[in-house]
């Protein structure tokens, strides 16, 4: 994402730490973020085989409180918030009134009448305006805590082993999508067993003012700092859609296989969600030439869709891509992707491309 309008880029509480670590910084959704430190491939491999960490402090946090907090969230999301117990986190969607998604989010239930919502960095203002507009007669309150939180995603198979010596909490007892308050390196945190890499890990919520001290402590126990480049290749291998690529205001979210995010209930935009999607999200594998977002996809000589995300897969050693194609062509096995005017064979590959053993 470029910064064409020249508004000053926002900085996370870890900005100085990134510069100290020699990160290459790039504009991302209005933020000045590290795209890589030592190198994308090394960072990717560290997360798949050991433990790495990402600064995700740019993501937004909204607190929703009040007697109608659950009722309000049930109305503006597609998943069943009533099933969410305190101490648990849930992946969820904010559907648009006229189709598509406003955002894909995580909701953490704090108490019967209190939730924390984590939203994509580039959507903070849009989500806030949308939620405020929908609040209406609900007896609930929204507060934007985005500036108050630092968020560090510790990811990789060795995450638990690396963190355990530095907290009294029993990390082995923490289930996927659970979270709890703890002390880590003597700092008050929330530890959530969540992530976006296809690996085990913990997302560390820490006060913004302590985030840099936490980051340095985590560096000290050998966690490999990883940038947005590795974050993107890791999530692509894991088949996770990314807002702005596989999801948007105009893409039908059920084009993806994430149909479980929509539950039987009344909610905003229900009619659009209920309509059958005309396109489907598929995985493609190529032999050599990497394909990128926007490249045309063909089946049987006909244009049938577009690549939404593509890269060379560091784990698999060949290029992979996700593409939105016409539903009628989505079951074909052989496709072609046009790269600089020339079509290259691509075969359909089930998502995810990579699943941890």
């Amino acid at each position, binding site marked *: 994402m470029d910064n064409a309008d020249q508004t000053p880029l926002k900085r996370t509480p870890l900005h100085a730490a990134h510069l100290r670590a020699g990160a290459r910084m790039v504009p991302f959704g209005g933020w000045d973020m590290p795209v890589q430190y030592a190198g994308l491939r090394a960072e990717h491999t560290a997360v798949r085989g050991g433990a790495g960490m990402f600064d995700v402090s740019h993501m937004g946090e909204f607190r929703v409180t009040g007697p109608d907090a659950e009722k309000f969230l049930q109305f503006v999301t597609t998943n069943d918030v009533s099933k969410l117990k305190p101490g648990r986190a849930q992946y969820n969607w904010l559907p648009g009134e006229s189709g598509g998604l406003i955002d894909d989010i995580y909701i953490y239930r704090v108490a019967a009448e209190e939730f924390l919502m984590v939203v994509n960095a580039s959507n903070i203002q849009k989500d806030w305006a949308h939620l405020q507009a929908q609040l209406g007669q609900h007896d609930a309150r929204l507060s934007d805590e985005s500036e108050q939180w630092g968020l560090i995603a510790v990811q990789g198979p060795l995450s638990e082993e690396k963190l355990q010596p530095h907290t009294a909490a029993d990390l082995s007892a923490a289930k996927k999508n659970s979270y709890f308050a703890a002390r880590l390196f003597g700092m008050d945190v929330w530890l959530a067993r969540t992530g976006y890499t296809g690996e085990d890990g913990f997302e560390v919520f820490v006060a913004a003012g302590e985030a840099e001290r936490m980051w340095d402590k985590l560096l000290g126990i050998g966690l490999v700092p990883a940038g947005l480049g590795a974050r993107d290749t890791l999530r692509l291998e894991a088949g996770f859609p990314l807002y702005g690529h596989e999801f948007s205001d105009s893409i039908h979210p059920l084009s993806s296989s994430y149909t479980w995010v929509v539950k039987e209930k009344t909610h905003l935009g229900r009619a659009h969600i209920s309509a059958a999607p005309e396109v489907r999200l598929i995985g493609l594998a190529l032999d050599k*030439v990497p394909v990128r977002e926007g490249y045309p996809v063909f089946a049987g000589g006909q244009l049938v869709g577009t690549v939404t995300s593509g890269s*060379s897969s*560091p784990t698999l050693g060949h290029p992979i891509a996700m593409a939105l194609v016409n539903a009628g062509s989505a079951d074909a096995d052989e496709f072609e992707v046009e790269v600089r005017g020339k079509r290259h064979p691509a075969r359909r590959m089930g998502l995810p491309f990579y699943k941890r053993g």
Partner: protein
Amino acid sequence: MNTPTDLKYAASHEWLSPDGTVGISDFAQDQLGDVVYVELPEVGREVKAGETIAVVESVKTASDIYAPASGTITAVNDALGNAPELVNSGPYEDGWLFKLDVSEEGDDLMDAAAYEAANG
């Protein structure tokens, strides 16, 4: 940054040797990161200085390569087909891209000192 003094450099980060060999600079390969694919021109193709003539792709992005001189392509580095990482490990040696029979150099080529100053 490794910038050999016997080469000339384009602002777009290609180098040109006295014998017409072309590659990308150490600075450029470092900026790109791990190279995973290189698309090279056909031998015999006539090119004009500044023309897009090849593509070097890293994991993250695709970068156009511009001809630093006008002339005819006389050879391409076929080894890059199976080992594109040579562009990272030896941008001035095994990672060269193609050779040109140079008819006229581009008019904005820099010497090593000027190139380093421009990318300092």
